[in-house]
C-alpha cells in the first residue's frame, strides 16, 4: 500500500506543470535575470584607480616628496590614475567628468571635487593622509629624531577592526540567497497539493480517498516523503544551476549547504501543510496565499532591497527571528562569511523548530475524518 500511494504521488506531482514551473523553473529564470544584472555589481575587489588631475604648477615642481608620493600610489593597480595638466585644463577635465577631482599643491594641498561619492572620498582620504604624515615627519625632524625613530613612528598604527570573514566577499550573493529561500518556501506547494488530494473537505478526490479503507496517517506519511524528496531534489537542481551556470560561489562546506537546503525545504513544506489544513478555500486560493506569504517573507529578508533586511533586524527583530526566509538567508550568510559557527546552527535549529511546530499543528487538524460540512 505504501509503495502504491508513493508511486502515484510521485507521478501526479511530477506531471503537475504549474507546480514544476513555480518550484523549479521560475526560480531558475529569476536567478538567470539576477545573474545577468547583479553578478559582480558589489565586488569590492574590483576598485578601479580614481582619475584625478594634478596641477603642474611651480609648487608641485619644487616638491619632490609630493611628486614621489603621487608616483608611488599611481603605479599599476594603484589608487590613482593621475593626469598632469595646467590649472585651466584641470578645470575643463573636472567639468567634463573626465576626472573626479583636482589636486593642487600650494603651501598645503588643495582638493577640488564636483560631487560626492566613493571616488571623491578616496581622493580626500589620500590628500588628508599625506598631509598628516608629512606634518608628522616635519615635526619629528624638527625635534631631532633619527631615521630609525622616524620609521618606528610612521609604522606605529593601530587598527581597531578585526577581519573575521573569509576572503573574496561578494555582496551580490545576498540576492541569490533570497532566491533559494523563496524557492524553499514555494516548495510548500508540493505538499499542499498532496493534502488537498486526500482531504474530503478540500477536493472531490479527497472525498473518494476518505471513503476508502486507507488510513489517513499512512497517506500523510507517504505524501510527506514524496513531497519533501521532490522539493529537496528541486532545490539541489537550483543550487547546481547557481553554482555551475551562474557561477555563484557558496563556499566549500557542501554538507552544511545541504543541511540548510533540507531545513529550508522542510520549512516550506510545513507552511504548505498548515495553509492547506486551515480553512476550506479552493486549492487555487491556498496556492495564491502561499505565494503571497512567501513573497512577503522574501521581501522582508532583503530580496528586492537588501536594506529592508537590515531595517527589519534593527526595528523589528522578532519578525526576522520567525521569518523562515530570513533564517535561510542568514544561514547562508553565516556559511559564506564565517564558514559556519553558532549563528549558522542557530538558524538551522530555528528552521527545524519552525517546521516541527507547523507540522504538528497541521497534523492535529488533518487527522480528523469527519466534517461538519463538505
Amino acid at each position, binding site marked *: *500500500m505504501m509503495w*502504491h500511494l508513493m508511486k*502515484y504521488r510521485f*507521478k*501526479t506531482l511530477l*506531471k*503537475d506543470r504549474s507546480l514544476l514551473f513555480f518550484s523549479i523553473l521560475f526560480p531558475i529564470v529569476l536567478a538567470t535575470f539576477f545573474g545577468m544584472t547583479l553578478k559582480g555589481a558589489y565586488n569590492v575587489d574590483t576598485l578601479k584607480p580614481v582619475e584625478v588631475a594634478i596641477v603642474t604648477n611651480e609648487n608641485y615642481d619644487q616638491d619632490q616628496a609630493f611628486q614621489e608620493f603621487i608616483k608611488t600610489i599611481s603605479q599599476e593597480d594603484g589608487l590613482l590614475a593621475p593626469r598632469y595638466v595646467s590649472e585651466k585644463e584641470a578645470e575643463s577635465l573636472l567639468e567634463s567628468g573626465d576626472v573626479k577631482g583636482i589636486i593642487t599643491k600650494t603651501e598645503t594641498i588643495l582638493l577640488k571635487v564636483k560631487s560626492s561619492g566613493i571616488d571623491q572620498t578616496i581622493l580626500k582620504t589620500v590628500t588628508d593622509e599625506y598631509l598628516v604624515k608629512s606634518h608628522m615627519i616635519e615635526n619629528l625632524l624638527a625635534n631631532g629624531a633619527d631615521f630609525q625613530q622616524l620609521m618606528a613612528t610612521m609604522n606605529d598604527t593601530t587598527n581597531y577592526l578585526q577581519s573575521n570573514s573569509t576572503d573574496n566577499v561578494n555582496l551580490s550573493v545576498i540576492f541569490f540567497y533570497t532566491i533559494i529561500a523563496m524557492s524553499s518556501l514555494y516548495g510548500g506547494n508540493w505538499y499542499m497539493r498532496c493534502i488537498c*488530494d486526500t482531504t*474530503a473537505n478540500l*477536493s*472531490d*478526490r479527497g*472525498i*473518494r*480517498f*476518505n*471513503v*476508502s*479503507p*486507507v*488510513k489517513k496517517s499512512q497517506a500523510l506519511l507517504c505524501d510527506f516523503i514524496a513531497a519533501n524528496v521532490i522539493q529537496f531534489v528541486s532545490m539541489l537542481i537550483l543550487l547546481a544551476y547557481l553554482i555551475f551556470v551562474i557561477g555563484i560561489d557558496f563556499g566549500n562546506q557542501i554538507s552544511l549547504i545541504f543541511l540548510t537546503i533540507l531545513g529550508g525545504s522542510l520549512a516550506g513544506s510545513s507552511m504548505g501543510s498548515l495553509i492547506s489544513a486551515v480553512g476550506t478555500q479552493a486549492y487555487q486560493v491556498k496556492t495564491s496565499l502561499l505565494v503571497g506569504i512567501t513573497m512577503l517573507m522574501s521581501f522582508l529578508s532583503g530580496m528586492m532591497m537588501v536594506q529592508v533586511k537590515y531595517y527589519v533586524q534593527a526595528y523589528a527583530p522578532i519578525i526576522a527571528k520567525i521569518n523562515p526566509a530570513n533564517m535561510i538567508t542568514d544561514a547562508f550568510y553565516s556559511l559564506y562569511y564565517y564558514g559556519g559557527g553558532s549563528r549558522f546552527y542557530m538558524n538551522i535549529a530555528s528552521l527545524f523548530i519552525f517546521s516541527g511546530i507547523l507540522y504538528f499543528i497541521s497534523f492535529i487538524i488533518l487527522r480528523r*475524518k*469527519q*466534517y*461538519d*460540512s*463538505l
Partner: protein
Amino acid sequence: MIIHVEQLVKRYKDLIALDHFDLDVQEGEVLGLLGPNGSGKTTAINCMLSLLKYDKGKIELFGKPMTANSYDIKRDIGLVLQNVAVFDELSVEENIDYFCGLYIYDKAQRQRLVNEAIDFVELNDFRKFRPKKLSGGLLRRLNIACGIAHRPKLIFMDEPTVAVDPQSRNSILNGIRRLNKEGATIVYTSHYMEEVEEICSHIVIMDNGKMVAQGTREQLKAMISLKEKIEIDQIKLSSQQLDAIRDIANINEVQYYGEHLEVKCNGGDHNLVNLLDYFKENNIDFGMIYSKLPTLNDVFLEITGKELRDQG
C-alpha cells in the same frame, strides 16, 4: 439489511438538512433516492459514508455501526461522485489502477479488475488518454470505473449522469443494471425522475430532509389521486364548454391556456374516449391529443405541492 438509517438528524447551524430521516435498503436492491436540489440526498449519503458528522440518529451498514474508522466496511463500498474526481495527470488506466489500489493490494488481482472495469465502461480505446482529452460522457464513465473497479458490494451513485449526453447516459444506466445483476446493491440519487423510474426497484422520495414517500414505482403512483393526464393542443373552447368538460366523469381538474387543454383524471378506464366523444358531439376541432400515465413528478407534486424539477 445492507443499510439501516434511523432517525437521522443533521443541522447546518439553523438549517435542518436531515430531519429524522429513515432509510432501509435490502441487499440486491437498486434504491432510488429522488428529490429536488437541496432536499438532503447528498447529505444523507455523506452521513452514511461517515464523511459528515450528524447530530442524532443511527447508521448501520452490513449490520454494523458505520464510523469513520470502519475500514472493514469501507472495503466493500464504492462511491461514484456527482463531480468527476480523477487525477488530470494520470491516464484512464492509471486513474482506475490508483483508486482500485486503495482497496485491492494484490497486483495481479488488481490488474485483472482494472481491465474488467475498463471493459465495463467501454473505455478500451482511451486507456492511455488523460482526462482532459475525454468528452464529458467519457469522463463520467471514467468516474464510474474509478468507483466500482474493486467490485464493491454496496455502491453509492450520486447523480452520475449530470450534464451527460443521451448516448452516454444510456450506456451508464445499462452499466448500472449490469452491476446490480452481478450482485451489487446500489443507492442511486438523482433529480431526473425518468432515470429513477427506469432502473430503480425501490424509490424513496425526499423533500426538506425527510422521506415523504417510498415504494416501488407502481406503489408510489397508486398513492396519488391522479391516474391519467390528457393533453390537447390547438383547441378553442368557450367557458361553457370548459364547464361541460369538468362535468365529465372521473375528470377532477381542467387547465386551459393558450389553446392548450390539460385534463387530469382520478380514475376510470375510458377517459380519453369520453373526451373525444364530447369533442365530436360539439364539433370541436383540435390538433394533437395524448394521454399520459402519472410520473414520479406528479407523485412529488401531489405529495409536496412542488415540482420535482430543478428549482434553480
